[in-house]
């Protein structure tokens, strides 16, 4: 049930066209009224009389309401609300963009990298390059029907930034020379193999750029005329001499 004060304060708030402010106004007036009632009770007034006096002292609800409405202008209030909403939207948008471009992206990449990255084995051979280190190790060799064999060569690349024009650029872009006891072939992304019937290659790890360094690991799968005993990988166009020789253990 609404008490007499609630009826009064409702009448005040009805006059205020900017509705979002009504609650705060009613609350402030209520606190004032309660203070006054308490004061009168402290003076020993009868509760009913105290409430009546305190309400009477508040004045005419219409007059108070109209005066409040003049101060709480609706267009000003809505403009304020709109600017706040806009500021909030901009903040959220900025945060999301920021998180997406730097935070989330690198977080996902880093997690994938951490989960999938395998360090090169101790037995891996390595070449120290101008901007980093290249490791190589023999992978599986599988005998295919018809005398052919699939041989895997695993490569790891750890580079310091900036990369510039680097000798291992060819490796990154699948352009290097492969040589084994049967002969030599060049491996390119566009023109995969010249010597064998088929070849495929896959990334074991897509590679992650970080501040200061980048690492990649990849496995080259080559379909060869026969199982190799050794292989040499190099990139003669690099301007820097390096050859990595991997050897497979020959099964008895």
């Amino acid at each position: 049930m609404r008490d007499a004060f609630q009826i009064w304060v409702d009448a005040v708030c009805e006059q205020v066209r900017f509705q979002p402010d009504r609650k705060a106004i009613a609350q402030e007036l209520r606190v004032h009224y309660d203070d006054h009632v308490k004061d009168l009770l402290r003076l020993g007034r009868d509760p009913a009389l105290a409430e009546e006096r305190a309400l009477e002292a508040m004045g005419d609800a219409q007059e108070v309401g109209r005066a409040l409405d003049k101060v709480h202008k609706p267009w000003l209030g809505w403009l304020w609300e709109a600017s706040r909403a806009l500021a909030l939207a901009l903040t959220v948008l900025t945060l999301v963009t920021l998180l997406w471009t730097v935070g989330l992206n690198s977080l996902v990449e880093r997690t994938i990298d951490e989960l999938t990255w395998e360090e090169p084995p101790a037995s891996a051979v390595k070449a120290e390059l101008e901007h980093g280190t290249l490791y190589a190790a023999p992978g599986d060799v599988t005998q295919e029907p018809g005398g052919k064999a699939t041989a895997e060569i695993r490569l790891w690349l750890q580079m310091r930034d900036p990369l510039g024009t680097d000798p291992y650029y060819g490796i990154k872009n699948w352009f290097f020379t492969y040589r084994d006891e049967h002969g030599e072939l060049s491996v390119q992304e566009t023109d995969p193999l010249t010597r064998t019937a088929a070849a495929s290659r896959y990334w074991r790890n897509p590679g992650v750029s970080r501040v200061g360094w980048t690492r990649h690991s990849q496995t080259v799968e080559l379909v060869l005329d026969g199982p190799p005993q050794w292989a040499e990988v190099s990139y003669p166009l690099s301007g820097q001499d390096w050859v990595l020789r991997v050897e497979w253990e020959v099964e008895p």
Partner: protein
Amino acid sequence: MKIDKSLMSGSTTLLILSLLSGEEMYGYQMITELARRSNHVFALKEGTLYPILHGLEAEGLVSVREKKSPEGRTRKYYRITRKGGRALDARKEEWVTFREQVDAVVNSAAPA
């Protein structure tokens, strides 16, 4: 003696800013202080204080903050701003001039 309402209305800003120049206050406190300091001559209809306060806030003459009273009630406390202080000085000057001129007119009209 109660003062005519229309005489009060022109001076409420001056009175309120004067009250707040000493300390920050909440609405009911202002009413009781106003009554006390004026020997109960100035009695504002209490509800009309708030449109005035909110207007002063909109003009930047007072600032408001919510504070819990010792009894645990959340009250809005009003405090005069720097701009409010300057407005108060101007209003005071205005008032002194006004009072002097009213006195001059009233006294000159009095029978000798």
